């Protein structure tokens, strides 16, 4: 398939979860208030958070997959995946701050100061912000070698996200254990790959 077309399809793929969630929101707003359950704000927070996590895993998966199937094309889409991850993380935060807390700045501040899971989640979000902000061609050229070093921030960000999830869990760690296994395997692969090539 034509590379340009492929890229375009790929970008639509990144928007797929947004379209899915957007459809539900449309339903809620226009004709079915129960489409997101009795606590729609909380549902949105969860949906966006999970989606962001999937994209984070996908970003980390690109390098091992690339090594396996030798698709250089995929490597070039890594930045798009990363930006999508940040986008969903931002929506996660916006639904928490805007819909759940309704922009009550005092409560937002209290949470940010007192709740460890919020603190690590917010830190991870800031890291993703830096990464997304430097994911354009201009930044890549301007930063040169330092760009690669800077973008290793994705690893501590991933670990903070796992801690965030671990501290959110109340009754059962199955889900966080599964994601941790995935992320840690990917990190391990990355680390071995790194030490071999350097």
């Amino acid at each position: 398939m034509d590379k340009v077309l492929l890229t375009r399809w790929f970008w639509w793929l990144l928007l797929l979860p947004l379209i899915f969630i957007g459809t539900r929101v449309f339903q809620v707003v226009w004709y079915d208030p129960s489409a997101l359950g009795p606590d729609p704000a909380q549902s949105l927070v969860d949906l966006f958070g999970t989606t962001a996590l999937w994209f984070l895993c996908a970003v980390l998966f690109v390098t091992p997959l690339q090594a396996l199937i030798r698709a250089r094309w995929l490597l070039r889409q890594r930045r798009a995946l990363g930006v999508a991850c940040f986008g969903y993380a931002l929506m996660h935060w916006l639904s928490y701050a805007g819909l759940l807390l309704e922009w009550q700045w005092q409560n937002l501040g209290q949470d940010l100061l007192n709740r460890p899971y919020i603190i690590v989640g917010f830190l991870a979000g800031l890291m993703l912000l830096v990464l997304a902000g430097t994911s354009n061609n201009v930044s890549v050229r301007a930063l040169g070698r330092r760009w690669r070093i800077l973008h290793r921030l994705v690893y501590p960000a991933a670990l903070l996200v796992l801690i965030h999830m671990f501290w959110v869990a109340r009754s059962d760690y199955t889900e966080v254990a599964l994601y941790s296994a995935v992320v840690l395997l990917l990190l391990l692969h990355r680390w071995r790959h790194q030490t071999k090539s350097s």
Partner: protein
Amino acid sequence: MKAPVGSKLTERDVTPEAIYLNRRQYLKASAVGAAALMAPALKASEAAPSVDPAPLWLQSQNKQASSSPFSTTEKLTPYEYVTGYNNFYEFGTGKDDPEKKGQDFKPHPWQVTVSGLAEGTGTFDLEDLLKGLAVEERIYRLRCVEAWSMVIPWLGVPMAALLKRLKPLSSARYVAFETVYRPEEMPGQGSFFAAIDYPYVEGLRMDEAMHPLTLMATGVYGRSLPNQNGAPLRLVVPWKYGFKSIKSIRKITFTDRQPQTTWEKANAREYGFYANVNPAVDHPRWSQAEERRLPSTLFASNRVPTLPFNGYADAVAGLYQGMDLTKYY
């Protein structure tokens, strides 16, 4: 406070219950009161389905429920949400898991084992345990520790009436409850990564258990309890966070020592034995000052201030006189 009115509910009465309870508003709204009563048709999802799978004796006991002066007149949370959005970790961690994964659970026949400091110890069929006790409908606020709340029309027997029947000894100072343990029917109980121990255990001080507000629930919304809400027998303590209201109770034990509770064992810093609703004491992970009264909408989360003892302070604050509630949370 007016006396409870004895009313015989029939199958037909189940659906218009919400309308019935708000009759004064409707009458006020229209000079033609009777017509007004008929007018607002409830959405199907707001009322219980007419099929009740419970045994006939339980159905009929629940149908004879009388109303109670302890009921609130606040707007009910629709049946669909009361039975489709809750925590019952035995069936999974998702809010819709109890309804989705709870359908294989078999709450009948059911037995309850009573032990400890009481004369009436032994194992009883549920029917015998409840025989002759008058079921009441109690519309209570339920405040979850996760900062959301609902208004739920429970059916049940006053806990005091049930416990008196078991003749606790004067040395009994606490009563402990235990949920049934059936990992083959309750997938959450078999989870390798469970953060809490199963079977779920809870407990009350004797005076809390005997308090007139404390209910042993047998039904909700005019029908017997669905599996996901703790069939066939669950605790309802409206002034405490929801997790105190243990579901699918299999054992009752009278004791002279404060029993350990599931959440205390899992995380004593976050969950205490008393777990009284208290806006002044934050949960370490979120503020308890407010709650989202469900259902909330996307752009108006329906936040209301959380009241001390969930609004039941007049009735229960006396139980905790002189206690430091920031220490005994």
